[in-house]
């Protein structure tokens, strides 16, 4: 997979219609998706696409709606009426976590999605446990596969990866490793990473970022959320900036430098708009 996607054609301030590799169908597409929780409107009229083999970054302030957006993509939230979700070009109505997972959408959460009191081997296959021909859990396989995946994919040292260890006893980075390994194992088409580096040390952050790179090498797509633009910029192909539930801008990496992007983010924070502030 040496050939990276070439993005061209879209102009920098044409924020809604950036269409890289326009000949390809997006893996996932949201059209006019809104999400309201009672009084709070977390998303309003979002148009969002992820193309095959593409890493899409999501930037935005606390509460901008990044987590809500990805939770909608992975079936945890249902969009309000009027919003549509397309998977590989097909509209999908009965969108749910199970549906999303069966189509190959896996998540590594901001709040770590592991059952803390259970051992690693029970977590690794949660919701899709392999079974023997008797219908019982294939415990032997669950344990050996867990150990293998953890060492092979995450480069874990032996201490942390014994499949019988309870998740609660692991460090934050190790837990994230289990979640990432799990996503990888299930052969995801689209991996969603919501602040996977939160609270991780420098070396563990590096590992996580390498993993994001691996997703691309494997020809899969990812959505990557992180507050640290120095983490996001190097690994993504395209960036969405969210502001108070709306898409404030879409950028192809080849069209914007990191400095320019930082400038614009400051501007959003100050004025609520990505463009030059108009004289008052």
């Amino acid at each position, binding site marked *: 997979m040496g050939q990276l996607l070439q993005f061209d054609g879209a102009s920098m301030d044409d924020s809604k219609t950036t269409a890289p590799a326009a000949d390809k169908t997006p893996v996932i597409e949201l059209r006019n998706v809104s999400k309201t929780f009672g009084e709070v409107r977390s998303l309003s009229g979002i148009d969002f696409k992820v193309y095959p083999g593409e890493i899409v970054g999501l930037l935005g302030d606390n509460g901008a709606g990044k987590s809500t957006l990805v939770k909608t993509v*992975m*079936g*945890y939230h249902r969009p309000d009426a009027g919003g549509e979700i397309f998977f590989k070009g097909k509209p999908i109505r009965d969108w*749910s*976590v*199970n549906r999303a*997972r069966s189509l190959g959408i896996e*998540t590594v*959460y901001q*709040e*770590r*999605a*592991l*059952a*803390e*009191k*259970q051992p690693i081997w*029970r977590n690794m*296959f*949660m*919701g899709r*446990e392999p*079974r023997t021909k008797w*219908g*019982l*859990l294939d*415990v032997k396989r669950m344990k050996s596969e867990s*150990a293998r995946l953890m060492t092979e994919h995450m480069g874990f040292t*032996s*201490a*942390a*990866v*014994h499949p*019988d*260890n*309870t998740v*609660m*006893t692991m460090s934050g980075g190790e837990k994230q490793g289990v979640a990432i390994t799990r996503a990888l194992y299930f052969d995801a088409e689209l991996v969603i990473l919501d602040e996977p580096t939160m609270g991780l040390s420098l070396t563990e952050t590096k590992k996580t970022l390498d993993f994001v790179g691996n997703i691309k090498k494997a020809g899969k797509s990812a959505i990557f959320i992180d507050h640290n633009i120095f983490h996001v910029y190097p690994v993504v192909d395209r960036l969405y900036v969210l502001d108070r539930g709306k898409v404030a801008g879409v950028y192809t990496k080849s069209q914007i430098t990191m400095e320019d992007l930082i400038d614009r983010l400051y501007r959003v924070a100050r004025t609520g708009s990505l463009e030059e502030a108009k004289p008052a």
Partner: protein
Amino acid sequence: MKRLLKIYLDKPELAGIVLLIILIAVFQVTSRGFLLSYDNLRGVLGLLPEMGMVAMGVTILMIAGEFDISVGSVFALAPMVMAITNNMGVPFVPAVLLGLLAAAGIGATNGMITLRFGIPSFITTLGMLFIARSITVVISGGFPPLLSADIPGWIFTQYIGLIRMSMFWFAGLAVILAITLSLMNLGNWIKATGGQIDAANAMGIPTSRVKMFCFVLCSMLAGFAGIVQVLRLGSPLPSLGEGLELQAVAAAVIGGTSLFGGIGTVVGAIVGALLIRVIDNGLVLSRVDANWFKFAIGSLLILAVIGNTWLRRQSRRIKLET
């Protein structure tokens, strides 16, 4: 070695078994050898299934992160329904099934109310404790109906040597439930649902249905246990099973079930129930004032929770390496 130690620390029911052995030894002495005599064992083991089944149901529900303290009332309601319908002419087996259906209905109601309104199941089932008891008394018409003489109650009550038939039912259910909990994906889901419901939801586990299943299972086990007891006694007293809910929760907790969900075993429930039965019996045989029974159970309960918490903390310090 480290591995063995960790396995031991991770299984609070093993601590319960050790305690059980110690208590049996002590009572064996204080009862001057009567505790383990054939006749006494027969009595103790004959009663164990009734409480053991309730404790298993409560344990599994607690692992799923919910409580049921209405089990004592369901324990009375199910056999009452069975007896009344049987007296109205419904044959024995359908009457038993009707009793179980009533229990399932109570469990489903507990689950539905708890999940639909998002209230603590402790409250839902506390309400149900009163409601189901009241229904039992009302439908009994104030005096207990007699069971007709020709029903085949022996399938639960007949002794085969040392063991009553009810023990086979109990053992069979225990094996099925233990396998479900540790070797089926449903068991994995129950533990995840009770331990970390957000994580379970995120992985696509149908947590509401899992909880619903556990509510219904818990109620049906309590109802079945009540039916077994009534067939043993010959008549469904409306006051049957009063206080049983607390003993069942105590058995679950003594057997290592966490009050916060996610942790517990069927074996633990059985060990807990057995401990309570042995203490009850042992105190009587040792001619201790019977009023000390609740004192003993209470102390054991508190000590068990302190002990289990400590064990778990120790276990967490030990990490296995490959």
